[in-house]
């Protein structure tokens, strides 16, 4: 910042107070010219959104056919009916989608806002130093805001921009505001783009303040699983997404040499962030001098789907909750087992008394003596101290006071199992459709195996217990039958590495754009898997083995840690952690998802030399046309997952989701029978040409893991793929189909432009099929395709969807 010197006078005025908000004049240190869209407003990128929606038709699957939002309602909107205000079903669904995306986006941004204030208070303004290998350091912020943040304070205006936009967007959902479904969707895309901005800001703030890894492919391997929590110590669980209080618990433990007395385990994304602290570049000094590598002392207790299983498995003595994804009956569940709970965020106070201003001793005493089941302590430092001291002090008292053993007795287990009347009420409400009646009946007959084999399929929602007319504590039956597994659930996970390094982009940029690295697969999200956590591991392994770049984050990264190969190695121990083919990267917590979408911007700017500054649609167009990336949210449950996926879509990244994701109500699906939908511009001369449908869909719902994997491979095709890339991508697409479907995919030929695109192992047969089934003309002498493909091979083809990218008009 340029220093402004000089003096000014205010004459004839008394008692004048001058507030200087921000000095706007700044020395320009960024040689990139400002792009067309700095701080885009709601309608700024509408043209881009409509291009996406023209190709990928919005598909709604209403969960509720009515609108009940105003006093004219309930209005029945089924079919072509309209509500009293005039809204139709499509617009109403778009409205709900926008609200969901806003929920997700604000959750991340509010997280960032809290960290912004807290970190400035605790550490002061810190320079954003991502190390020598990351010069493009905040790609999403650069692309959307058009600024290059230098210190934490530079994120202040970015967060204010976000907050203004979400306020405007939420206003649009009021009755009598927006009424067109495509405009609702454009707004949802805008909200979700902002979500990625909020995630990036949040993660950079915590990376800088807590000295987390900045693109470290060798980030430490940490312990993961309920069994890693040392029962000989007090166990403090920190649950949620915001490390402010949990990090203080770790610092307090370190400062007071208490690691031999307390184990700190995280649940959900706080677990990720705990294990990243102090593993970065060595600054700020406050962290590096006192807390170097402290993250390796924390443990990942587990992902969100394991929370209630942990409670029933009695793996905790005290719980600190912060924000996001905290099941709202946490207090009730913990109270039953005399586990004190400390709410540390204004966002989740659980009806508990606010004890922020009380002395620590008094608060701890009230919790340890069980005078109150929990407290709210909103000062992170105090909350951390209360958490650790309470856990240590309450541990011996819990077993004294608690009426029963946390696990059922053999006798009670039998009694409950035998009380099942096989009414199947449980199965009517079980999300993954576990045949709970059969499982319990087998248990009553002494066969616990079904309780074991379905343990990882159970999502721990507890709906079965609520439905059971016999009040059978089904999760406790599970805990009893799996108590050995709970004690021995000990695995390894690589700590979140943070963003992609510029050097990595230079290495993989060309292979990705040409297609010789077959794609980037991002496995993100939560624990609501349709068929168990094992699928997270299976999908990751399939694609790493095939040479894709596989990135993971959030609960999916934790869940895939729970399985090993024949040598007993988890996926993190089997493969290196760089951004490269046959590697698997743990990016970090939910907010680290921004580094995945940010990586596509970095490819465009570092590899292709495009200007990212305030240039969102250009970056998204490049991604859509040239970067074979596909997101997968196989356990997605939250509104945050909705906004993350929708934000990816605006960025041109297709996403595959699991069948429960129909609850999001909206998807984007291509029509391959409409040739005109796949018209694209050749940027060389502005001519409009037809292309194969690549990527075919933007938000795809798969029924099974097998279908998801086939679609992941398919959605990595891009119009820019060269022959070698096409051959590699076709090989994987066809091979996955043969492996899991027993046949070739019916549309493989669509992606062929030249005989050299054909995988060698099937080349002869494929050429025969092209001729016989699809009517292509084959020159058998030259083994060449004469006619038939949608497009012919053209090595310098430069596809774009944006007119201003045309270099020379025809």
């Amino acid at each position, binding site marked *: 910042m340029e220093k402004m010197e000089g003096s000014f006078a205010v004459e004839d005025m008394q008692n004048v107070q001058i507030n200087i908000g921000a000095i706007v004049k700044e020395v320009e240190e960024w040689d990139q010219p400002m792009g067309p869209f700095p701080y885009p407003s709601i309608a700024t990128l509408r043209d881009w959104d409509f291009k996406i929606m023209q190709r990928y038709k919005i*598909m709604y699957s209403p969960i509720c056919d009515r609108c009940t939002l105003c006093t004219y309602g309930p209005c029945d909107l089924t079919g072509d009916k309209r509500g009293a205000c005039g809204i139709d079903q499509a617009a109403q669904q778009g409205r709900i989608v926008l609200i969901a995306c806003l929920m997700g986006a604000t959750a991340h941004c509010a997280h960032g806002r809290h960290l912004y204030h807290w970190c400035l208070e605790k550490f002061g303004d810190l320079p954003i130093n991502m190390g020598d290998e990351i010069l493009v350091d905040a790609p999403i912020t650069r692309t959307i805001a058009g600024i290059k943040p230098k210190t934490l304070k530079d994120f202040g205006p970015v967060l204010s921009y976000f907050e203004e936009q979400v306020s405007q967007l939420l206003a649009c959902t009021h009755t009598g505001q927006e009424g067109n479904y495509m405009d609702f969707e454009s707004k949802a895309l805008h909200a979700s783009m902002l979500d990625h901005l909020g995630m990036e800001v949040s993660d950079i703030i915590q990376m800088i303040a807590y000295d987390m890894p900045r693109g470290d492919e060798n980030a430490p391997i940490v312990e993961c699983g309920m069994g890693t929590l040392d029962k000989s110590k007090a166990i403090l669980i920190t649950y949620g997404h915001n490390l402010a209080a949990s990090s203080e618990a770790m610092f307090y433990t370190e400062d007071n040499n208490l690691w031999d007395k307390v184990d700190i385990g995280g649940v959900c994304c706080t677990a990720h962030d705990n294990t990243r602290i102090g593993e970065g570049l060595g600054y700020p000094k406050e962290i590096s001098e006192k807390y170097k590598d402290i993250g390796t002392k924390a443990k990942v207790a587990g992902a969100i789907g394991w929370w209630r299983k942990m409670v029933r498995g009695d793996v905790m003595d005290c719980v600190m909750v912060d924000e996001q994804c905290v099941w709202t009956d946490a207090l009730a569940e913990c109270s039953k087992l005399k586990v004190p709970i400390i709410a540390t965020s204004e966002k989740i106070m659980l009806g508990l008394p606010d004890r922020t201003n009380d002395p620590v001793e008094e608060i701890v005493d009230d919790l340890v003596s069980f005078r109150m089941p929990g407290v709210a302590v909103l000062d992170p430092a105090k909350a951390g101290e209360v958490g650790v001291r309470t856990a240590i002090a309450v541990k011996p008292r819990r077993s004294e006071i608690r009426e029963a053993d946390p696990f059922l007795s053999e006798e009670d287990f039998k009694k409950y199992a035998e009380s099942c009347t096989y009414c199947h009420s449980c199965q009517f409400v079980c999300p993954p459709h576990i045949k709970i009646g059969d499982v319990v009946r087998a248990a009553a007959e002494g066969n616990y195996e079904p309780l074991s084999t379905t343990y990882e399929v159970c999502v721990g929602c507890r709906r079965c217990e609520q439905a059971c007319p016999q009040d059978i504590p089904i999760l406790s039956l599970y805990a009893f039958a799996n108590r050995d597994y709970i004690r021995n659930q000990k695995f390894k996970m690589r700590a979140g590495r943070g963003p992609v390094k510029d050097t990595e982009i230079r290495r993989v940029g060309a292979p990705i754009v040409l297609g010789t690295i077959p794609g980037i697969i991002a496995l993100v999200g939560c624990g609501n898997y349709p068929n168990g956590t094992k699928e997270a591991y299976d999908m990751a392994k399939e694609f790493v083995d095939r040479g894709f770049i596989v990135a993971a984050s959030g609960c999916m990264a934790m869940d895939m840690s729970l399985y090993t190969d024949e040598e007993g190695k988890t996926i993190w121990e089997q493969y290196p952690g760089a951004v490269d083919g046959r590697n698997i990267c743990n990016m970090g917590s939910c907010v680290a998802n921004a580094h995945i979408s940010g990586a596509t911007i970095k490819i465009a700017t570092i590899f292709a030399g495009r200007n990212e500054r305030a240039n969102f649609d250009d970056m998204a167009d490049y991604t859509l046309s040239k970067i074979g990336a596909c997101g997968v949210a196989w356990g997605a449950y939250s509104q945050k997952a909705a906004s993350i996926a929708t934000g990816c879509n605006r960025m041109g990244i297709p996403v595959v989701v699991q069948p429960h994701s129909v609850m999001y109500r909206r998807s984007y699906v291509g029509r391959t029978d409409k040739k005109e939908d796949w018209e694209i511009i050749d940027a060389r001369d502005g001519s409009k040409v037809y292309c194969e449908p690549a990527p075919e869909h933007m938000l795809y719902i798969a029924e*099974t893991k097998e279908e998801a994997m086939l679609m992941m491979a398919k959605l990595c095709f891009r119009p820019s793929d060269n022959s070698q890339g096409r051959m590699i991508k076709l090989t994987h697409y066809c091979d996955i189909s043969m492996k899991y479907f027993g046949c070739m995919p019916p549309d493989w030929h669509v992606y062929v432009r030249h005989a050299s695109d054909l995988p060698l192992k099937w080349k002869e047969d494929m050429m025969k099929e092209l001729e016989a089934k699809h009517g292509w003309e084959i020159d058998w002498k030259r083994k060449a395709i004469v006619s038939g493909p949608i497009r012919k091979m053209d090595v310098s083809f430069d596809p774009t969807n944006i007119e201003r990218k045309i270099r020379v008009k025809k």
Partner: protein
Amino acid sequence: MAVDTTKNAVPFEMAQIPGPEMAKAYNTAVIGAILKKAKRPLLVVGAELFEDPVMFDKAIEIGKTGVPIAATAHTIKGFIERGYTENVHMIGLHPLTSYLRFKDWQGLDGKGQYDVVIFTGIFYKFASAMFSTLKNFNRDIKRVSIDRYYHVNADMTFGNLAFNPDQYHEAVDEVIAKLKA
């Protein structure tokens, strides 16, 4: 005596209550007659068939009456293993439903849009949502479920038979018999 498929007409996931328009449970004779009468029917089968393999055989029986089959997810594998691929098409339920909502779609065989779709063997929540799409955005297609669940967003469905596989299989056999008659 025919299986009473009109009982237990409550959504399989009990909170799945969409609104004023909810499916009616019909007996097998009526459903069979509707299928027989259809000009452009399409049987849509999902991956739950792998958990109840006898349903592959029943789907093939329906296929042999001339009703084309859309094999969603990786269900095609079950048909290949049984040597029946005559009129079986591999397509995901999601894109299939997307096509079904457009009146100008020409079908899997290029001969025109379908007038009746029959779902079975599909993950409940997914099938329900896809029925909802058709219910709201293409009401020209009759939505029929011959799955073991009461499907609230269908036009015609069985009541819940999920916990009585024998009865369920018998009910499907009755529909097939009607179709063949």
